[in-house]
C-alpha cells in the first residue's frame, strides 16, 4: 500500500508506452476521414481537429513531459544542492549574494520570467530543441524553491557532533561530504525533486496554453489544451478533456508521493533531533 503511488505511475507510463508502440500509435499521423471525432473502434479516444489520434497524442505527451520534466527536476535539484552547498561553505558575502539571488527568483511570478526568457529564444528552432529548452528554463528558474531549507540543513549538520567526530577521526572533507553529508541531505533533496516535478509539469501546461510551451507537431499537455479553447470545437466530444484528466491524475499521484516523502523526512528530522537531545 505504501508504494501504491509509485506503482500507479509506473503502470501509467507502461500503458502510455504500449499505446505509442501500437501500429496506430503515431502522435503525428493524420486521418483526414475522421476529423474532430469522438471515440470509435479506430480511434479509442477520438481525434483532434487535424485528425490525429487523441489517445496516441495524450500518451506521447505523457512520455515526453514525464521524461523531460524528470530530467529538469533532477537538474534543478542538483543546482539547488550546489548553490546551498556553496552558500553554506563560502564567505558570508558570497553566501548572502547566493541566497539573495534565490530570493530574487522566488519573488517574481515565474510565468513572467518564463515568458520573457522564452521570447528571447531564436524563432527557427526545431520542436524537440524548443521542448528541451523549455524544460531547461524551468530547471534554471525552479531551483530556488528549497535552497534556504537545504542551506540551513547543511549548516546544521556542519555543526553537529557526527561531523566533528568524522573530522577528528581524520576523514577528508570530500569524504565527509560525499559519504555522510549527502546521506543526511537525501530526504530533503528527494522532497525538492518531488516538489519540482509536478510544478514543472504544471508550468509547461500553463506555458503551452499561452502558445509558448512545447511547439507543434510534438504532443504535449500544454499544446493539447488549445483544442479546448478553440471555438471551432466548442461542441465537440467529451474525450477532448482526456489530456486534462490524465495530467491531473498524474500530478495528484505525484503529490501523494510528495506527502509521503514529507512525512518520512519530518519523522527522520524528529528522530534526528531526538537523538541529538539524548
Amino acid at each position, binding site marked *: 500500500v505504501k508504494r501504491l503511488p509509485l506503482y500507479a505511475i509506473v503502470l501509467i507510463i507502461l500503458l502510455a508506452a504500449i499505446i505509442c508502440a501500437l501500429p496506430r500509435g503515431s502522435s503525428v499521423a493524420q486521418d483526414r476521414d475522421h476529423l474532430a471525432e469522438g471515440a470509435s473502434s479506430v480511434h479509442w479516444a477520438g481525434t483532434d481537429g487535424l485528425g490525429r489520434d487523441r489517445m496516441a497524442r495524450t500518451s506521447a505527451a505523457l512520455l515526453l513531459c514525464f521524461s523531460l520534466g524528470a530530467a529538469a527536476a533532477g537538474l534543478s535539484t542538483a543546482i539547488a544542492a550546489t548553490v546551498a552547498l556553496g552558500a553554506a561553505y563560502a564567505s558570508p558575502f558570497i553566501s548572502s549574494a547566493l541566497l539573495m539571488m534565490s530570493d530574487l527568483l522566488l519573488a517574481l*511570478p515565474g510565468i513572467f520570467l518564463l515568458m*520573457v526568457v522564452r521570447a528571447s529564444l531564436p524563432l527557427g528552432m526545431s520542436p524537440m530543441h524548443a521542448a528541451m529548452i523549455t524544460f531547461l528554463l524551468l530547471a534554471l528558474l525552479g531551483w530556488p524553491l528549497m535552497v534556504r531549507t537545504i542551506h540551513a540543513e547543511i549548516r546544521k549538520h556542519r555543526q553537529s557532533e557526527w561531523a566533528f567526530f568524522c573530522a577528528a577521526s581524520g576523514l577528508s572533507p570530500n569524504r565527509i561530504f560525499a559519504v555522510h553529508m549527502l546521506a543526511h541531505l537525501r530526504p530533503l533533496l528527494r522532497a525538492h525533486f518531488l516538489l519540482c516535478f509536478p510544478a514543472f509539469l504544471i508550468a509547461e501546461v*500553463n506555458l503551452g*496554453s*499561452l502558445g509558448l510551451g512545447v511547439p507543434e507537431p510534438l504532443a504535449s499537455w500544454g499544446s493539447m*489544451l488549445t483544442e479546448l479553447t478553440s471555438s471551432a470545437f466548442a461542441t465537440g466530444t467529451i474525450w477532448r478533456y482526456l489530456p486534462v484528466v490524465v495530467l*491531473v491524475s498524474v500530478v495528484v499521484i505525484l503529490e501523494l508521493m510528495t506527502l509521503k516523502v514529507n512525512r518520512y523526512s519530518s519523522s527522520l528530522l524528529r528522530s534526528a533531533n531526538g537523538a541529538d537531545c539524548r
Partner: protein
Amino acid sequence: MAILKPLLLLLLIEAGTVLLVRIAPGYFTDSLLLDARLGAQVHAQMQAEKAAAHGPVIAGLLEDTELLSGKLGESRFFHVPVKDLLSRRWKITASLIFGGLGLGWLIAVIALLPTLFGSDHLGARVEALLLAPMIVLLAIPAGALAAVSLSSGHGTPMAVIALLTSPRVYRFLSTLLGSHLQSDHFFYARSLGVSRFRLLFAHLAPCVTPELLALFGTTFIMTLGIVVPVEVIFDLNGIGQLAWTAVLNRDAPVIAATTLVAAAAVALGGILTDGVQLSRIWRSRHSGNLIAGEAQ
C-alpha cells in the same frame, strides 16, 4: 532595509529583463529592413542613417534610462505609448486579482469555520472530507482550469482564480491555526471557559498576524502568475494579456514595462507587508514601554 530590499529587487528584475530583451534575436532589427519591396540600396541607406544617429548599444541604454525614469516608451506592435496601454488595462487586472484573491480567501475561511467553531470531531471530519477536492484543485494548472471552464461554459475568470488560490490558503491556514489551537495555553484558556469567539479574535488573531500577512503576499504573487493564462484564455484585455501579446510579437518596450509593473506590484506588496509588521512591532514595544513606565 525593509524598503531597500524590495527596491533592489525591482532594480535587479528590471535590469535582467532589459538584458534579456537586448539579447533577444531581432531586437535591433527594424521591421522596414524586412520589407521585400524596398531595394538593397534603400536598406543600406537606412542602416547608414541609423548608425549615424546612434548605435544599437547607445539606443538600448537610452531606452533603459527612459524606462527607469518612468517614460515607458512606445509599443512596437500597437504603435501607441505603453503608458496608454497600461492605463487602459490595469483596472481589469486589479479587479480580477483582488476579486479572485478575496473570493479564494473567503472560500478557505468558510471551509475552516467547522474547525474553528465546531467540535474537534466535526473539524476533523470536515478536514478529511475536503482533503480529496483540495488535492485535486492543487493539481490543476491555471491554464487547464480556465480552458475547461471556458469550453464547458461554466465558471468565470474570478471563480477560476478563487478555486486555484483557496486550496493553498486553506491548507496553510488549517496547519497554522491547528497548531495554535492545540497548544497548551489555548487548552488552558478553554478550560477557564473563554469562548471560542473571544479566543480567536483576542488571542489567536494577534499571534498569527505576521504569518497571515506573509501568506497574503505569497498568494498575491501566485495570483499575478495565474492571471496571465486566465486573461489570455478568457480574452480579457488586462495587463497579463498585454504581456502575452508583447511576448508573441517581441514587443520589447511592452515586455519590459509589464515585467516592471509585475515587479513593482511584488515590491510594493513586500513594502506594505513589512511596513504593517514593523508598525505592529513598534506599537507593541511602545505599549510595553508605557506599561514599564507606569510600573515605575
